[in-house]
């Protein structure tokens, strides 16, 4: 045999209990989650794609000859009291709402995860003090304090808005990660890393953190849904996006005027439906992820 001395060692690159695969299978199995997922992909690419061609300045320009028009061929979804095209505002608004939702979710995620990891990993007095701080933040009347800060911040911008939201929203994930880190640090692999001379920060971020990844993905997805809702709520009250930067919330905010609410549905109903569908879809995907990461609840 000629081939016998040629040993081909074929090594398959196998992933750990492949998370991505399990998640994908779960989403496909769950028709609702699959539809939600496709919906999100379509909406996201649509609003980011179409808004490239839309001129935001053009859309938010006041046109007094076309105020409060019902839907027509010219204005697909009518116009508002400044004669601004609702359809264009809806597209850009969805984009802005999604962007800020993602931004705030990421920022709260980074802060909350780091805070929770440190607190849980060190435990003891450090943990005790850090968690008392979290308790305090959790108890604050969040909405009011955010509104006050938005109202008094000088040079208010999208960035200061997301920073203010982040400042009062990082505690939930911090708490969750902390309780998990507290369990993980007692496991032998973390202890082993210590005996191998690995510094604490490396153990936290390179040993413990990867073991919490599924929990983090699920929590961040569910947080995204909540943050989209919060942004639209704050903008609705007039303390989110300024009016010249449309968001789903600013469109809904027009409904604070009783006449708009009662008589001009085309201004606020599409935005209301969009917020609802976005939140529902993101939550559906989040719940499917949750099931995928918890073997007991898995459907597939």
């Amino acid at each position: 045999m000629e081939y016998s001395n040629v040993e081909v060692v074929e090594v398959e690159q196998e992933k750990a209990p492949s998370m991505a695969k399990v998640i994908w299978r779960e989403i496909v199995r769950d028709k609702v989650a699959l539809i939600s997922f496709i919906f999100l992909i379509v909406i996201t690419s649509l609003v980011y794609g179409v808004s490239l061609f839309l001129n935001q300045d053009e859309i938010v320009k006041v046109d007094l000859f076309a105020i409060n028009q019902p839907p027509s061929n010219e204005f697909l979804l009518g116009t508002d009291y400044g004669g601004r095209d609702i359809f264009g505002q809806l597209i850009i608004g969805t984009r802005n709402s999604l962007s800020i939702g993602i931004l705030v979710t990421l920022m709260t995620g980074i802060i909350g995860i780091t805070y929770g990891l440190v607190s849980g990993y060190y435990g003891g007095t450090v943990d005790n003090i850090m968690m008392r701080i979290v308790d305090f933040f959790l108890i604050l009347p969040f909405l009011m304090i955010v509104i006050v800060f938005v109202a008094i911040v000088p040079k208010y911008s999208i960035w200061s808005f997301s920073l203010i939201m982040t400042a009062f929203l990082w505690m939930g994930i911090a708490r969750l990660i902390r309780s998990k880190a507290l369990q993980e640090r007692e496991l032998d692999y973390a202890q082993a890393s210590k005996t191998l001379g690995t510094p604490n920060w490396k153990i936290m971020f390179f040993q413990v953190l990867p073991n919490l990844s599924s929990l983090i993905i699920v929590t961040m997805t569910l947080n995204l849904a909540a943050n989209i809702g919060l942004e639209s709520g704050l903008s609705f009250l007039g303390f989110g996006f300024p009016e010249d930067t449309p968001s789903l919330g600013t469109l809904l905010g027009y409904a604070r005027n009783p006449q708009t609410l009662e008589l001009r549905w085309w201004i606020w109903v599409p935005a209301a439906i969009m917020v609802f569908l976005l939140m529902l879809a993101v939550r559906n995907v989040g719940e499917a992820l949750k099931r995928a990461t918890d073997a007991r609840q898995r459907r597939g």
Partner: protein
Amino acid sequence: MALLEVNDLKVHFPIRGGILNRKIGAIKAVDGVSFSIERGKTYGLVGESGSGKTTTGKAIIGLNHITSGTVKFDGVDLAGFTSKKSDIRKDIQMIFQDPYSSLNGRKRVLDIVAEPLRNFENLTKTEEKKRVQELLEQVGLSPESIIKYPHQFSGGQRQRIGIARAIALKPKLIIADEPVSALDVSVQAQVLNFMQDIQKDLNLTYLFISHDLGIVKHMCDEIGIMYKGRYVESGTKADIFNHPQHIYTKRLVAAIPDINPVNRQQQKVYREEVEKEYQQNYNDYFDQEGLAYTLRHISDSHLVALPQKG
């Protein structure tokens, strides 16, 4: 000079309570333990669960805070050691009891075994890979294993990965915390014999923690028996197995199963005798709190915790 000298080691965990959560007491997990291990020998630490044997091991390697006492390694005290701790720590490594939780399931074998190398040695990617493959071969695993994940191995193989990781830095002392008790009996002997082989090859010193006297008899040169955080008896293998003095030790030794069926009846009678003696004399061997007395020499190597009376 002994490689490791532990003197009057105490590890106490505080009990907190009261309104201000202040310390109101302490659990004395390890309460005044002293022993020393000679280079190249295996020292067995035996006791039931909760006797403080694992806590002792973890305190030596720095995983538990030492309340008082000294731990001298190669003449250097580890207890008060804070700066440049890692340089000396690298000479002491640990093998963990549970081969499932001691390896991070999200890491490839390469990353697991290379972890200590990355902390202490500056190797290039190729050097590191070569080193890891050598180590794996040394513990009897194929070099291709490096790209696999821990869950793709059996318990015995995983414990070998743990051993490969522990010997990566060429340590002098290895603390083996019940290294085989989570494994199938059929695999236990394999791993134990293998540990003895690498001990010879690498001139290792073992601190062998176990509850199984049979295994300890097989592995160890000297033995210490712990009960409720204190020593009840310590000595050479012969001292402990042939001349146990403390009733607690006697009881443990009597409980070792004998494989020869001819002796079964005899063994049973002996065990019952010891049990009877244990019940009758319990109060003579332990103080009011049920703790062991201080150790006293009965020969050069043999120490027993006997009451002060004559």
